[in-house]
């Protein structure tokens, strides 16, 4: 009877998933690889205002501020990726001052101290701010990578992306760990 009851419920078996990282260190190289992939794939689920692009063939520009934690991995992923018909381009900015127009901006934890500066530079433009720094969302960040157990997940701040004039697909929201 107990046995039957067990099967009465819908069950699914969760097998070891590959986004598990060896340590729970968010900066490990494997964790960074996953974050690079996620960063590129976000482009497909985010809708920018029309003013963000000058033409239909304009690429989506992903900017990385400060010291690049991804290396060539992110370029490789971006090269083969297309989001809604647009190519993805990676641009690296050495400091907040050199930031030019971009659609996605990754702020590594090393640049967390400069977040205020960067926000100022962007001054209300529609930019998806992504970071793996803790408590990033409280600093007007939109997507924040977090470690959940041994897995890389991300939180999304609804207030912040709405403020930035972005639309994030419900599909992406569905897979977010936490929406604030």
């Amino acid at each position, binding site marked *: 009877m107990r046995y039957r009851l067990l*099967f009465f419920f*819908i069950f699914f078996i969760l*097998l070891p998933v590959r986004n598990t990282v060896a340590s729970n260190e968010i900066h490990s190289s494997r964790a960074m690889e*996953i974050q690079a992939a996620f960063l590129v794939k976000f482009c497909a689920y985010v809708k920018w205002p029309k003013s963000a692009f000058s033409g239909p063939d304009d690429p989506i520009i992903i900017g990385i501020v400060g010291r690049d934690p991804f290396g060539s991995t992110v370029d490789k992923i971006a090269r083969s990726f297309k989001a809604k018909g647009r190519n993805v381009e990676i641009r690296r900015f050495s400091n907040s001052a050199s930031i030019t127009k971009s659609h996605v901006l990754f702020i590594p934890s090393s640049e967390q101290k400069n977040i205020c500066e960067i926000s100022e530079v962007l001054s209300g433009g529609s930019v998806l701010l992504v970071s793996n720094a803790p408590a990033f969302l409280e600093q007007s960040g939109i997507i924040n990578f977090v470690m959940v157990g041994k897995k890389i997940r991300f939180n999304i701040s609804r207030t912040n992306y709405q403020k930035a004039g972005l639309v994030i697909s419900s599909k992406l929201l569905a897979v977010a760990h936490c929406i604030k």
Partner: protein
Amino acid sequence: MSSSLFRNLSINKKLAIVIIFSCLLVSLMTSALFVGRDIISLRQSMIADLSGLAKVVGINCKAPLEFMDTETAGEVLSSLSARPHILQAVLYSQDNQVFAQYSASSVTSEDAQDFHNHLKNAHSLLLLEESYHFHKDYIDLTVPIGELGKRVGAIVLKADQDEFYAILVWLLYAVCGIFVATLLLAFYFSSILNKVISRPILALAEAMERVRREENYAIRVDITSGDELSVLVEGVNSMLSGIEQRDEQLFVAKQVAENANLAKSQFLAQMSHEIRTPMNGVLGIASLLMHTSLNEKQLKFVRTIHNSGESLLNLINDILDFSKIEAGKLELVLLSFNLRDMTEEIVELLSEHAQEKNVNLACLVELDVPAYVTGDPGRLRQILMNLLGNALKFTSHGEVLLFVSVEKAHNKDVCLRFEIRDSGIGIKKEKQEDIFAAFSQADEYTTRKFGGTGLGLAICRRLVDLMGGEIGVESVEGKGATFWFTTVFSIGSSSGIAIDIQSEIATAQYFDASILVVEDNLTNQIVAEGTLEKMCCKVDLANNGIEAIAAVEKKKYDLIFMDCQMPVMDGYKATENIRKVEKENGTERVPIIALTAHAMKGDRERCFAVGMDDYIAKPVREPQMAQILTKWLSVK
């Protein structure tokens, strides 16, 4: 085998089988077509349905796959519980690993594992296009997620086929229903066809059978329709009326022919009889004349007259016998007689003729042949005389042998075989059957050389037939012939009324007696008177019964010869009268011997009934007369 089985069936059944078979075949083919089409379209719709579902689920799983969110993927998959026919769903990630999976509550963990193992053996799911496989009790469908080249994973759905099988069962019932309906319709139509086609045929067959059984060609078959069958029936009817008409014509023709034949036979018999009477006169007188004092030349003439008369009489006797047999008027008498004595007498009778021709004539009767047998001695004698006479006629040297043996014996019956062997000219093989036919001889040359009517053997054959035997001949041309015949006798005894065989070898006898001859015919009177006087009898004549009675009253006679048919008063009445007078007066009983024209069975009985003592067939010949006199006068 089966085709002959079909061929022997009645038309009814043939029609029914053909109709039912073709109806069933058509409905089978139609059903197969529709069921097949239904199955295919059902499967297609199932696949389309499943594929749509898989695509929706796949789209919803794309983000979880991309962001490696197994929990969300699991949630998406668990939404499949709304579709109870989905048994299992497995989501594969880009690297061909199971990302998330779902099993319906009805699926056991073993089944789930089995399906897993099954998929593990499959090819790289990401390389595949959308594909599906039908299994015995489930379908699996694989749909890749993401565009070609950018595949992020694949989803595999396993669905049960319960619905499919339910529809299949329904279809099966429908097909069975159609079959039953077809069968009933086919029976109905074949019964209609039966009415239209086979019933008239059967009626026709029945009518033909009735015609055959009753031999009634007046039967006609009713025409019920206007098709080819009615043509057939009309044909049969006209054939029947044709046969009927022809039968009538044939019957009339047959009657005419039979009447003509009967008339001919009667004429022949009458003529022969009429010829016989004067012939007897000629013979009797010639015989008497021979014993008068004649010179040698006269004697030769008289003898010639006598011999010619004999031949003529034999001929006429043959014709008479033959026409009697043909008319079916010949009846056999049954008497016990001594066979050995008879054969010896016959041989003795013919031995003189044999000696003249220098031919040895012998008789051989085997020991086991009974001495006394019961049959018709006169007719047996006739056959033997005929065959022996023939044998002597066609044999110029050598011998003629009569051989009697027992063919077979059964209780009181014995079948005797008589063989007459000669060393004569023989008979050609091809003629051997013909010679027993009437008016037939071996050839014309034979006829010219040896004479004869050709009736002898035909009469023999008919007599043997009457006696229940067979007759035949074995011969090699030029080397003699063996005629044989068999007859069935019952074994007789000497104690029975033995009839003495008429012997023609009568030695001259002399009786001193007074005899009354009652006879209306003048010639016969003269012959009888002459013959009796030759034997030294005193003869008185009477022309009829009245005269006879008067004569008997006047004078006492030793013996009376009484003709049966006479004018004024016939012999029967006269005899009755004489007997009555004798009884009244108490005088001695005079032997009265009947003279009958033709020795018919009934005549003899009538003679004895009125009080006659014996009878003698006309023409009266000297030997018979001598025998009668010996018999009755010696008794005295």
